[in-house]
């Protein structure tokens, strides 16, 4: 496992930062870490990169305990509220971080132009970071994180300051990292972005993991169906309700959240049996946003997975 945590807990006095986090992230994956503001996302990332010390629990990064310098040599990190020494040029900043990573002069010569090219900042390296736009600063931060050609990259909101084109480029960089067998831990509130590129996700709420798993499987469990029926009867609605977790009726349109995809076929039978007229029946794949909102609203009661390490 590239990342493995066991009952990782951080308390700020009596306030919970994150509680009993058990995660296992395998090699070569893009792992999305989601949660509402203040849920504990950044706390966990900060613990994993060595900015915070856990109150209890253990974690291993690249098979080594937290804080191990050898593991850090192979780990890249782009902090969320990044700000770099604005009196340095882009090239000097990269050279400084390359020195922190212990890269040799030869490696520096090779890696600095490579990462500048990778993040689209070639030709801008002699400008001072203070003159960079927000987007360029985010790119230089990403370049710093990629300097050692890391096995594992923590990206905390990597596209928050980027325009749509920039976001697409960063997504491409992340996908390219996965293609090369690297592992990416992506902390983002942009659900559509996570949905587009992540293999697995974990959702954290009030400091606890409330759901975790392979994204595709998580989404396939929740099926949204929209049925257009006329001549509805109370019996028909009652039977619909029995099959679904949630049902909303808007005139002839009925929207159902089914518990099981197999129940889609039963809906037509219920309509016909109760003398209704079926105009359309459309199954819609649940989006990550729907799942996320459902889980947060439920408070994670039925989806708690925090105590059981999930091999992803």
């Amino acid at each position, binding site marked *: 496992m590239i990342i493995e945590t066991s009952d990782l807990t951080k308390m700020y006095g009596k306030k919970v930062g994150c509680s009993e986090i058990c995660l296992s992230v395998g090699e070569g994956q893009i792992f999305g870490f989601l949660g509402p503001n203040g849920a504990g996302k950044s706390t966990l990332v900060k613990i994993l990169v060595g*900015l915070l010390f856990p109150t209890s629990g253990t974690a291993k990064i690249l098979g080594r305990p937290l804080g191990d310098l050898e593991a850090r040599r192979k780990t890249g990190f782009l*902090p969320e*509220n*990044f700000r*770099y020494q604005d009196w*340095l040029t882009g090239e000097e900043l990269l050279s400084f971080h390359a020195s922190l990573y212990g890269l040799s002069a030869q490696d520096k010569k090779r890696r600095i132009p490579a990462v500048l090219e990778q993040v689209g900042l070639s030709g801008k390296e002699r400008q001072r970071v203070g003159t960079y736009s927000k987007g360029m600063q985010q790119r230089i931060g990403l370049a710093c994180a990629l300097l050692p050609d890391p096995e594992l990259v923590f990206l905390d909101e990597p596209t928050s300051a980027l325009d749509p084109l920039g976001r697409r480029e960063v997504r491409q960089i992340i996908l390219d990292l996965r293609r090369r067998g690297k592992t990416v831990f992506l902390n983002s509130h942009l659900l559509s972005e996570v949905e587009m590129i992540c293999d697995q996700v974990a959702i954290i709420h009030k400091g606890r993991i409330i759901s975790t798993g392979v994204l595709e499987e998580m989404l396939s469990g929740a099926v949204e169906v929209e049925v257009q029926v006329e001549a509805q009867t109370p019996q028909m609605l009652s039977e619909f309700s029995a099959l679904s977790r949630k049902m909303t009726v808007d005139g002839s349109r009925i929207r159902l959240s089914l518990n099981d995809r197999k129940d889609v076929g039963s809906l037509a039978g219920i309509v016909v049996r109760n003398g209704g007229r079926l105009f359309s029946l459309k199954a819609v794949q649940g989006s990550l946003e729907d799942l996320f909102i459902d889980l947060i609203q439920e408070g994670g009661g039925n989806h708690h997975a925090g105590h059981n390490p999930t091999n992803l």
Partner: protein
Amino acid sequence: MLAITLLTFKEVIRRRIILITLFLTLVFLVLFGTGVHYGYEEMAGQAGPLEMMLTQQFLALGLYFGSFIVAFLAIMAVVGAISGEIEGGTIYAIVPRPVKRSAIILGKLLGYGFMLCVFAVLFYIAILLIIRFNTGLNVPVKPAALGLFCLQPLILLAVSLFGTTFLSTLANGIAAFMLYAIGVIGGMMEQIGYLASSEVLIQIGIVSSLIMPADAIYRKIVYSLLATPEVSMASMLGPFGSMSEPSAWMLLYTGLYILCFLVLAVRIFSKRDL
């Protein structure tokens, strides 16, 4: 650690800390030189046997205010060395790199320490040259005194580096200045205590030099420069002089004082959440 030290050098140059300090130091030295020139010219002729004392008073004044300036530079430069980076967010990209937190503290110590020592050496030599050219008093450079002049900002460096690991930049700045002021005022009280034969004032001076030994180091510099086996001119300089030479134990205490603050700085920073 070397990367942090080099970055610290670059920072003091790029952020114009050195430039502004050198400019204002030049202004001070020009004013001091002008003052010594005209003061000596107008007063020395009438001073008679007190001419030597007057000359040495100028030297003591130069070294006293020189110590002030070097101490202020130490505090101002270092006060936000860690806290400023936490407040600005730059530390979040440095600590997760494969570098020990102790190396970050020691790298900054080396960077600022070297800069302060170079500045102190230049300042010390400038004061001696101004005195020599204007009064003809040939004060030998004395490496030991020069070393002590460099030691003063290192005390403030250690204290400020300790404070910056857990206080905000502003709070640390206030604390360091107050501590320095305690040392300075205590040192003056001690000298007045000797003149007035007040044991209480002398004790206040001793306690204050234990709280902040920078002023005691200044007294030792003055004593070592101006005292001769026959007579100690240093004792005749009032609050700027030195009635008795701080002992070697004081130097040992100062060394331990610096070491203690550095160890605490490393320990606190190594364990704190960011």
